[in-house]
């Protein structure tokens, strides 16, 4: 790893950053998808009648049990078998998003169960509907309680976005490979830079979530353990 390799890499950093933007887009997409489905799955697991609960648990079991790369291939190559053309980017958002929802649902389920059932009872005694209770009593507390666990999930899926490389999404790893395929001595510095980018993003993300957690903190409502 020579000084020359580093000086050759320097002008290419913007290309890597371009790739990183794609990772961030993937991240935003899969986290939002995972959040919405994750909350829904958790609510089903806690409140829905037994058959629906079983279905939600099966969903969780599937998306937690199948390797990410396999999911990516399933979502990318699967639809084309049925004549549906799906972009690699969309396939990655779906595969990683569904997978993340299975993990996020566990976080939310734990949070929902940490809220004393007496509060739902009290809200019902006021004449509030079930949906009203979820909206005004359960979710505001469960989402706050979830932030700590969510911070872990963020770090984990941030790194997972690089797996989209496997189905040809032109993200940061793919850009790094393009650079180094033609110029092998660049490999080490390039991947060191990529590694640094993820370290910084992980740090920044967790810092941001921590900030949000402190902003939303309410006395007496803390995640335990």
């Amino acid at each position: 790893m020579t000084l020359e390799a580093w000086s050759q890499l320097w002008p290419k950093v913007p290309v890597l950053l371009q790739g990183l933007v794609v990772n961030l887009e993937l991240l935003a997409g899969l986290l939002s998808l995972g959040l919405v489905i994750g909350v829904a799955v958790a609510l089903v697991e806690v409140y829905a009648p037994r058959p629906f609960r079983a279905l939600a648990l099966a969903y969780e079991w599937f998306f937690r049990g199948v390797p990410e790369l396999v999911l990516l291939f399933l979502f990318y190559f699967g639809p084309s078998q049925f004549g549906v053309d799906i972009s690699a980017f969309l396939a990655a958002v779906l595969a990683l998003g569904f997978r993340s929802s299975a993990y996020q649902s566990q976080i939310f389920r734990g949070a929902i169960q940490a809220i004393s059932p007496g509060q739902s009872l009290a809200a019902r005694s006021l004449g509030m509907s079930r949906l009203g209770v979820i909206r005004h009593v359960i979710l505001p507390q469960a989402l706050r309680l979830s932030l700590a666990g969510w911070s872990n999930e963020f770090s984990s899926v941030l790194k997972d976005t690089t797996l989209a490389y496997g189905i040809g999404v032109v993200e940061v790893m793919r850009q790094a490979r393009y650079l180094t395929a033609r110029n092998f001595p660049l490999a080490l510095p390039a991947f060191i830079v990529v590694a640094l980018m993820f370290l910084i993003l992980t740090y920044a993300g967790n810092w941001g979530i921590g900030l949000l957690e402190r902003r939303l903190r309410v006395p007496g409502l803390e995640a335990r353990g």
Partner: protein
Amino acid sequence: MPLLRVEDLHKRYGTEEVLRGVSLTVVKGETKVVIGPSGTGKSTLLRCINRLTEPDRGRVWLGDTEVTGKGTNLNRIRSQIGFVFQDFNLFTHLTALDNVRLGPLRVKGLGKKEATERAMAELARVGLADKAGAYPAELSGGQQQRVSIARALAMDPQLILFDEPTSALDPELIGEVLGVMVKLAEEGMTMIVVTHEMGFARSVADEIVFMERGVIVEQGSPEKMFRSPEVARTGDFLRKISELYGDAA
């Protein structure tokens, strides 16, 4: 016409029959105190009245609306029956004001200004106007229970059910909660109160109901129940409970 009519309520959990035919009526402005040993079905009775627990059999009327009727708008009925729980059950993430305001805002559909005014008035009524901005965790047990009473009052209910409202409190905090309840009774609020506070029962109740193993054993004025109960068990229980919890209020 009585405000509340309960007719032959039955409730079973597994093989255990918790309520075995309970009937009672409450007229407007009355304070009815329900007493009885632990596990007798007092909480179950209260919860069956607004169907937080679904009774197996029997009927409940609030005014001329049958609570247990098939097509009844249950949420509407519940909004007219206040419920005060033993362990307060305040909403952890909301301030005292927001706890009291939530029902008027989200159930009664009042505007923010009106809901806030009403909530502040009810907090003042229980002596906690200065704690409007405090979260439940920042309040003593007695204060929390007073907020929960204000929360029930803010719905402008026709009657309030109290399920052992002072049982979770340190002795020195019981007085402030009983004080609020005495005031409500004097103002003509209709209440059913499950309690072991015999001083409160003696001085505030219009009628005392003694329950045991799922049935009402005896009911009558405090005078009659304390002086000359017809059933020996009633006298025994009253003596025991007065010894245990004291008789001052």
